[in-house]
């Protein structure tokens, strides 16, 4: 096509090309979009209304490749991209895990746990036994626990009778450990489950003074939990790489003070991510090693974000604060890299 025939060229084809060029990152479109469009319009045969299929594929793949590419010959950009990918992958998994936990059955209120404790303790010879219901928590390193613990001194208390009472309340006995005396005198652990996704665990420990009964109630892992966590990890990984690639490309056209600030923010963000990433990785190991225990306590990957002592040092909210700081640094770096102060773009014939 010659320049003379451009004016008469159909706008439908051009708008097709413009839409396809959206596959490219914005900074790239601003720099090369107009010239690519010229080349596309020149290579196409006259009268064509829409691009060839192969041409569409070429542009879409070209755009995707450009989004994932890093500037060549910059080892620092590669290192930052790899670390950002790891960090965002871990954060994504944690976000997916948090979302997954929303699909768990809600824990019963303290009053309900209290009532169930009474059922387990039972009434013997007119004198009610009492288990002290603990607070319904969402706590510890990983598990979700609502519990009750207490000493029942009445010699007549038996696990069998307690479980029979619990069964009448709608619980189903799923498994029981054989009554084997252990060093600490505990003779059995029974697990009951409700079809609504709650698990009740009852332990009895007998000693010369009587029986100590411990109960725990926790939500079972829902079937949506693992897919959501894995999906979060995948989305996070992709996002981490894409953001790092975009920032390192956009940085090329920025003033050096601005580049220095972005580098500093990236470094700070990655440093702040270290602690949460280690904690998430440790919890992932816990989660995986307990995956096959259907009645075991549920470990969730994002538990280190909860306000508890996860590491033996630092304040309660340390990991959540570090994760937030890291994300804020990343956000600031991305925002700062988007400035177009010194970008030599072809503003007159912008595409997209």
């Amino acid at each position, binding site marked *: 096509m010659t320049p003379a025939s451009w004016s008469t060229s159909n706008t439908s084809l051009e708008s097709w090309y413009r839409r396809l060029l959206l596959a490219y990152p914005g900074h790239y479109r601003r720099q*090369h979009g107009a*010239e690519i469009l*010229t080349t596309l319009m020149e290579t196409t045969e006259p009268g064509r209304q829409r691009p060839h299929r192969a041409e569409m594929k*070429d542009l879409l793949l070209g755009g995707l490749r450009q989004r994932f590419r890093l500037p060549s010959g910059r080892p620092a950009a590669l290192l930052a991209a790899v670390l950002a990918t790891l960090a965002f992958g871990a954060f994504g998994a944690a976000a997916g895990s948090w979302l997954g936990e929303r699909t768990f059955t809600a824990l019963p209120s303290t009053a309900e746990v209290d009532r169930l404790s009474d059922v387990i303790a039972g009434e013997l010879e007119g004198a009610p036994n009492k288990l002290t219901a603990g607070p319904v928590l969402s706590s510890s390193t990983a598990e979700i626990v609502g519990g009750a613990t207490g000493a029942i001194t009445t010699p007549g208390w038996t696990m069998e009778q307690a479980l029979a009472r619990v069964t009448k309340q709608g619980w189903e006995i799923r498994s029981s450990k054989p009554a084997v005396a252990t060093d600490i005198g505990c003779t059995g652990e029974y697990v009951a489950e409700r079809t609504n996704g709650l698990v009740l665990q009852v332990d009895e420990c007998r000693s010369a003074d009587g029986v100590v009964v411990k109960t725990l109630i926790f939500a079972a892992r829902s079937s949506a939990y693992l897919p959501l966590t894995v999906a979060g990890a995948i989305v996070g990984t992709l996002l981490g790489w894409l953001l790092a690639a975009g920032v390192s490309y956009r940085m090329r056209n920025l003033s050096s003070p601005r580049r220095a600030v972005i580098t500093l923010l990236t470094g700070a963000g990655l440093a702040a991510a270290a602690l949460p990433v280690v904690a998430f990785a440790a919890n992932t190991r816990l989660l995986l090693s307990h995956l096959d225990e259907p009645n075991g306590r549920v470990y969730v990957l994002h538990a280190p974000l909860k306000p508890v002592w996860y590491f033996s040092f630092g304040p309660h909210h340390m990991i959540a604060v570090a994760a937030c700081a890291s994300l804020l640094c990343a956000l600031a770096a991305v925002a700062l890299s988007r400035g177009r102060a010194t970008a030599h773009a072809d503003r007159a*014939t912008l595409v997209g």
Partner: protein
Amino acid sequence: MQEPTFLILTALAAEPLHGYGLIRAVADLSDGDVRLRAGTLYGALDRLAEQGLIEIERTEEVEGRLRRYYRLTDGGAAALTEQSARLRRNAAAAETQLRRRLAPGMSFSAMVEAAA
């Protein structure tokens, strides 16, 4: 260096070219074997510019259309010279090997002739 990259540098060795000019030059140089599409071409141009092998020579605007001309840098010319020498060396080696492949057959028939 891949074939399209080699051909792009070769096309730019003689004169600066814009995108469409490059696509045509590469097709001519390869006797129509390599037909670059815009996405592939600009991906390669971006990479080559990053490596300092080519650079933008000038930008033209014709009837609201933007054309950008690329030229080979000194580094690009050196890389192309090196690659061209390597290809010539490899091609020569291939030809030598092919001649040697032919040689035993000929000597064998010569031996048969001598025996007869």
